[in-house]
Structure formats: structure tokens, C-alpha cells
């Protein structure tokens, strides 16, 4: 019986360790820029949900496309109505990323590392491989990270009509800023 108790205690301890490997935030900032000399197109949200699993170097992101705020209300409406088609179905409502940090990171140090994050980016129902350049600063209380990557709207089946094609950049820059804390369930 003592053996069983030991197994359970070890199991409990093991699980606790496992939990410490997971970091999380619900208010990651995500912004994108597809400005041209003709039009400033910038939007931001601070409602990105993201996890890092240190044991696997795994990263996940999820954000509602309707949470992006624009300076022009009409632009925000067109972003959701005409381009992202956010309310067309459940899949279109979210943008997601699932990938791994491919550069080794020493999670025990507190030095900023330039790392590469590779994985699947999904939006408008289309998944593509992307590589993001990230800066990761591990720390005792949490992990600070920023990342940047570029996408081409057409790759995600987002049609841009000829009438506005000069106003929207061919390549969109997406920037992410997240301050992770240990995940408490």
C-alpha cells in the first residue's frame, strides 16, 4: 500500500513539475500593418491568447479577428466583412498559430535570445507554414517575447479588388508582443 501511495505522490510531484513548464497570457498584443503611401492600414488587438510549453519548445496563439481595432471604423467593418469574413463561419472568426521555437533557448537564463519560430499559421480558413523572427527573454516571474512575420493576403484566399489594390500593401507585417506568466489552472 505504501508503494501505491509513493507512486501517487511521485505522480503528483511529476504533474506539478509539468505545470511549471507551461507559460501563458491572454492579453498578448498583436498588430498588423499593410500601409501604403496612399493609405495607413494599421490595426491592433490586445486579446491574443498564447501558450508556451518549455519542455517541448512549443508555441500556440489564438486571436479573434473581430478584436482588431482600427482608427477608421469603416476600415474595421470592411476588414471583417470583406476581407477576413469573420462571421461567415467559426473557422474564419479566429487566426491561429501553432509552432515550435527552433533555436535552442536556455530557459534558466534571463538573457534575451534571437530565436526563430516555425509553424502553421491559420487565417480565413487557410493554413500556411511561416517563420517568425522572435526575441525571447526568459525570467523567473515570466517570459517576455516579441515576434514578427510577413504574410501575403492572397495566400490565404483573401481577394483584394483592383479598385483598392494600390491602397493595400502586397505583404502584411504582423507583430506580436507577449508577456507570459506561469500557467495556473
Amino acid at each position: 500500500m505504501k508503494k501505491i501511495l509513493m507512486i501517487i505522490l511521485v505522480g503528483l510531484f511529476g504533474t506539478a513539475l509539468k505545470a511549471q513548464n507551461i507559460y501563458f497570457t491572454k492579453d498578448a498584443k498583436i498588430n498588423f500593418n499593410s500601409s501604403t503611401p496612399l493609405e495607413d492600414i494599421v490595426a491592433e488587438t490586445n486579446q491574443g491568447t498564447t501558450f508556451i510549453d518549455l519542455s517541448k519548445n512549443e508555441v500556440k496563439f489564438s486571436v479573434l479577428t473581430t478584436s482588431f481595432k482600427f482608427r477608421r471604423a469603416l476600415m474595421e467593418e470592411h476588414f471583417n466583412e470583406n476581407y477576413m469574413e469573420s462571421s461567415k463561419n467559426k473557422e474564419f472568426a479566429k487566426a491561429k498559430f501553432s509552432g515550435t521555437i527552433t533555436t535552442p533557448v536556455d530557459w534558466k537564463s534571463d538573457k534575451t535570445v534571437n530565436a526563430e519560430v516555425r509553424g502553421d499559421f491559420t487565417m480565413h480558413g487557410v493554413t500556411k507554414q511561416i517563420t517568425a523572427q522572435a526575441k525571447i527573454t526568459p525570467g523567473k516571474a515570466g517570459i517576455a517575447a516579441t515576434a514578427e512575420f510577413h504574410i501575403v493576403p492572397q495566400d490565404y484566399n483573401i481577394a483584394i479588388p483592383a479598385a483598392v489594390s494600390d491602397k493595400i500593401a502586397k505583404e502584411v507585417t504582423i507583430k506580436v508582443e507577449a508577456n507570459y506568466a506561469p500557467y495556473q489552472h
Partner: protein
Amino acid sequence: MRGKFPTFIFVFGLMLIAACPLFGQDLDSLMAKEAKPVTIYTSATFKSTRIGNGHSIEQMKTNQLEFRISHRFGDLNSGGYNLYGLDYGTIHLSLEYGVTDWLEFGIGRSTYEKTIDGFAKIKLLRQSSGEKNRPFQLSYLFSDEYISSTADPLMTNTYSRMTYVQQILLARKFNEKFSLQLTPTYLHRNLVATELDKNDLFAMGVGGRYKLSNRIALNAEYYYVYRANASVLPVTYYNPLTVGIDIETGGHVFQILLSNAQAMREGGFIGNTTSSWGKGGICLGFNISRVFTFNKK
């Protein structure tokens, strides 16, 4: 189990399972767990702040200004001498500003009866899905119209030149393509054409849109005007029917339409429409909307 397993271990095991929901979970299931239900408010029920002539449930958001230019040609049945109405035209200009997301003020000027109008549109309920679910949206519109034309000698003072409009806008965006709006309307004219004309008019508007593509929509709008004594009135009035196409290009919306109403404000098109679709009293018209933003970065 029956005695072989002490009960406390079994209970302890259960507690362990309860205390460690992380056990055996991956990031995907954690993500799903953290995705709290959110409320998504419906937007873009209509492309523009007007369905055709009348107001739609849409209004300018905070610090957005809309400049509208609306134009109606003359009636198609006015003959070749008038180039089937194209020689003639009325214009309505307006500036409409969103003070907050739920309150909009507008001022306008029309060549028809040289009116000046001012209105307030107030969003009372928003349609939403998700955590908070409401299947419809509701707004209230109040508008004052001042007829500045000197054509009617009986309009001797300011009071006699006023018309008041009150509308409830009840709308639902059924899906991405189809939206419908009901617009119960109460109109009060301080001075009417004859003794038989009622100062108070009640009308029910029905308007809808169907999106043909992301940027093009088909609109229709009809106002049923209740006139109990229509048969004895010296002038035959008709209910205004407007059908149009919305074309959206970035910051502009173009509305091209056909209507039997010449006026572009409620007192005119609900109260005074005398042309009939059946008799070819149809005019071609368009509305152009341009939105300016005064939001700081």
C-alpha cells in the same frame, strides 16, 4: 475493490485527478479551456446609413463624419421634352456625425421645398451572438424639418413650417447576405395642404438588403402610409417604393436607385409622394456617402 483497496487511497486518487487537470493535457486543450465565451456584436447590417430614402439602422461610430450627397432626377413619365426626367433634379446634402458609437447627429439641406433638417439617431439595442445573444437591434430616430420655401403663402411663421418625424428602427441581420428592417413611423406636420389632410401620419416601413457580392448589395424599401380618408383627398398620394444597388469602394458607398419619391427626407417621401410606379412616375437617383475619421491614433 471490496476491501482490497483501502477507501482512502481511492478517494485520494480521485482528489488527485480533480486537483491536476493539467495531467495528460496538451496545449490545444488548454487553449480551448482558456477561450472564454465572448459576445460578438453584429456589424454592417446595411452598407449605408440609408436603405434608399429612409434611414437604415446603421450610424456613424465615434468621431466619424459622413458627408452625403443625394440626387434624384425627374420622373421618367415627364416626356421626351424633359429627356424623361433627366433635365430635372433635386438634391439633398447632409453632414452626419457620430458623437459616440450610439449617438449620431445630422444636419441636411434639400432643394425640395428648400428644407433644412436636423436629426438624432440613438442606438438602443445591439444585435449580438455568443455569450450575450440578442437576435435583433433597435434604434430611435427623431428628426425636425423646416420648410424654408416661400412658395406657400399660408406658411407665415416658423411654427407652420415645421415637420416632426419619429421612427423606431427594428432590424435583424439574418445572415451574411440578408438583412431586414421594420420602421414604424410617426409624422407630424404643423401645416398641411388642405383641411382634409391629417396633421398626424402613421406609416410602416419595410426595408431589406441582399448582398450580391462582398461589395455589392441589392436594397428595397417600402413605406405603407396609413390614410383612412385617401379616397376623399384632392390629391392622390402613393406609398413610396425604392429599389437600389449599393456599391462600396473603400471609404465611399454609391447607391443607385429607382423610386417614385422625389424627396429625400421623411416628411417629403412619406408625406408627399404623388408619383406612381404604375404610371411611370419613377425617378432615377443616387446617394454618395463619404466617411471622414477624426479619431486620433
